[in-house]
């Protein structure tokens, strides 16, 4: 233990003085988490997962425009802007703002639409009651009224999902308005229609009391739905709120950062081999396993600090920059176990790379590229479910996929130690296999001088 401790202290001292290594270990992952989470947050906004600023030009200024605005705000999907630089925008300026990508879309409510909708509702209801233009209750006789339009201008770069979400929301709002308007007309016309029908059939013999007692329609139909769609989490212990991009990005890129320790770790091993400090150590009363264990412990310690730093960024710094706050997952103990397993897997890979690579250049090229590939396969950049079937099968062999899956279980799905056990087992197996292969390779190549 004393010799392992001495190696740990030596490694930490060397790392502390290695500016490039520190950059790779701390600054780069921290920047990655910051930049990618903030960028992703914006992408998710444009895809509708959080509120987006849209321009609304209400040329009508009547009740319909106000209802559209109110209902859209209630959906939580958008933040409505009606003024630029303290001045109300007109349709031309609004479209220009969309063309300039200042806004992703604008909604134009045309002049006279409230009046037109009311007239159209009346016409439709009358039609449904089979009342012709010449009937007594028809106060708007004449030709068919054109259906009024609400125009939506989209920036062409707006993604399909968000475009559909906005259009669907608008359609829902319009359906609600339509039902309300039709019901209002119906509640007014129906007693008249019944009265008229009774009089028509019975003539002057109808008692006045009977006509007075015909009930009107009082109910607000649009705000009393018969059915409801409720979103439910698949996991038992899921969070109350929908997971944010921070919740998914921070653990994903923290894992990516952890695996980047292979570069300084492999570099250190290669340097020791090249400058013969390893030869000197191997002539001393210490085993290779002791030396490697000291190295692994030192890097585990450093990676834990790195991971802690990234969690602090997610918890305290990202909210200052406008992102949601990171919530430490459902099972902190499981989180520690996953983190340690992922770090061990990364150190195992670092030892393997440092043992097999002949030069620092080889390790510094192959290491990062292999990690980027493993990260891409592991779903850090694109979710695994969005990959082609063949890639999904390959991704099952990426240690980053095991780590990410386990992290998302805790950070997003509300899992616990039981749900992550298999991933932890895979990560630890990867560590054992890489260390064993490194040991065999080292003794075969070094001791036999092959």
């Amino acid at each position: 233990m004393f010799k392992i401790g001495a190696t740990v202290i030596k490694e930490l001292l060397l790392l502390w003085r290695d500016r490039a290594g520190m950059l790779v270990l701390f600054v780069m992952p921290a920047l990655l988490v910051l930049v990618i989470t903030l960028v992703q947050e914006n992408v998710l906004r444009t895809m509708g997962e959080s509120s987006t600023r849209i321009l609304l030009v209400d040329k009508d200024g009547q009740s319909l425009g106000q209802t559209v605005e109110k209902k859209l705000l209630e959906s939580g999907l958008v933040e409505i802007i009606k003024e630029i630089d303290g001045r109300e925008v007109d349709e031309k300026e609004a479209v220009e703002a969309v063309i300039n990508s200042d806004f992703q879309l604008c909604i134009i409510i045309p002049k006279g639409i409230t009046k037109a909708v009311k007239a159209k509702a009346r016409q439709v209801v009358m039609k449904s009651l089979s009342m012709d233009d010449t009937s007594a209750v028809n106060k708007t006789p004449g030709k068919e009224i054109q259906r009024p339009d609400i125009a939506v201008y989209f920036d062409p770069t707006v993604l399909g999902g968000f475009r559909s979400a906005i259009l669907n929301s608008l359609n829902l709002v319009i359906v609600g308005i339509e039902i309300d308007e039709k019901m209002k007309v119906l509640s007014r016309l129906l007693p008249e229609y019944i009265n008229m029908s009774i009089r028509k059939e019975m003539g002057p013999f109808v008692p006045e009391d009977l006509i007075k007692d015909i009930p009107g329609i009082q109910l607000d139909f649009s705000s009393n739905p018969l059915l409801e769609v409720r979103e439910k989490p698949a996991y038992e212990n899921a969070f109350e709120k929908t997971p944010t991009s921070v919740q998914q990005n921070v653990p994903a890129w923290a894992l990516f950062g952890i695996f980047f320790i292979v570069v300084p770790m492999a570099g250190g091993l290669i340097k020791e081999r090249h400058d013969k400090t390893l030869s000197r150590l191997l002539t001393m009363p210490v085993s290779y396993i002791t030396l490697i264990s000291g190295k692994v412990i030192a890097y585990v310690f450093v990676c834990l600090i790195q991971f802690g730093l990234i969690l602090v960024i997610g918890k305290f710094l990202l909210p200052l920059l406008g992102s949601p706050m990171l919530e430490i997952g459902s099972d902190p103990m499981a989180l520690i176990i996953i983190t340690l397993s992922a770090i061990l897997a990364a150190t195992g890979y670092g030892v393997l790379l440092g043992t097999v690579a002949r030069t620092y250049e080889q390790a510094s090229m192959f290491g990062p590229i292999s990690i980027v590939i493993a990260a891409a396969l592991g779903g850090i950049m694109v979710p695994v479910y969005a990959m082609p079937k063949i890639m999904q099968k390959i991704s099952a062999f990426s240690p980053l996929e095991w780590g990410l899956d386990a992290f998302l279980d805790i950070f997003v799905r509300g899992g616990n130690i039981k749900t992550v056990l298999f991933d932890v087992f895979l990560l630890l197996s990867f560590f054992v296999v890489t260390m064993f292969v490194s040991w065999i390779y080292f003794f075969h190549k070094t001791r036999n001088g092959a």
Partner: protein
Amino acid sequence: MQIIDTAEKRGETAGEKALVVKDLVKKYKGSSGPALSGLDISVNYGEIFGLLGPNGAGKTTAISIMCALLRPTSGSVTICGVDVLKQPNRIRRLIGLVPQDIALYSNLTLRENLRYFGRICGLKGQELKDRIAECIEIVGLEKKADQRIFTYSGGMKRRANLAAGILHKPRILFLDEPTVGIDAQSRNMILEKLTLLKENGTTMIYTTHYMGEAEQLCACVAIIDEGHIIAEGPPQELIKQAPGHASLRDLFLALTGKRLRD
């Protein structure tokens, strides 16, 4: 200055050799010929034994096998009566290595390097502190001991390399070209310190390309070429036995030829 304990304290028995190498053969995979082919060496306690030879003669391979870094294809090596191949862990307590390269952590100071290597050798507490101070004094780097190695000159690095090799008082010290590429002053100092170590009973196996150093320092030398010994004995006797050669350098060139080696 008492650097190494007396022979009695070290448990040396009369007639026992410090190092015995018998019929050592080493073939590297993919290599056309053997790096060592039947090397035999015998070194007495307290002796400096010079291993001389041109580039590629097999000196570094021989030292690597003697230090338990490489396994030979065949043959045996015994150090202080302990079989290197069977008991490499015991051997590591007896030997010290000063490699041809500066085998130190360049981003650590000399004191930090020595502290680490000392701990790895099992030294602790006051004993470790005393040995570090002693070794730093031996190589004359007291004023620079707390500077990082990369700031050292070539000569200082070589002296620091020596300090790390003698830190744990090895019974046998292997020195692989310890004076290569340094100025006359640093070389002279290293040779003085090696003489002092010899006087205090350390056995040394010394490889060098500087024949003058070997003449000055070694009680016995072996000239090896293509993996086997072509001449062996005390330097002066070897010169006497070869008429027409005024120095070890002349003899060396006569034996190994003037053809350039890669």
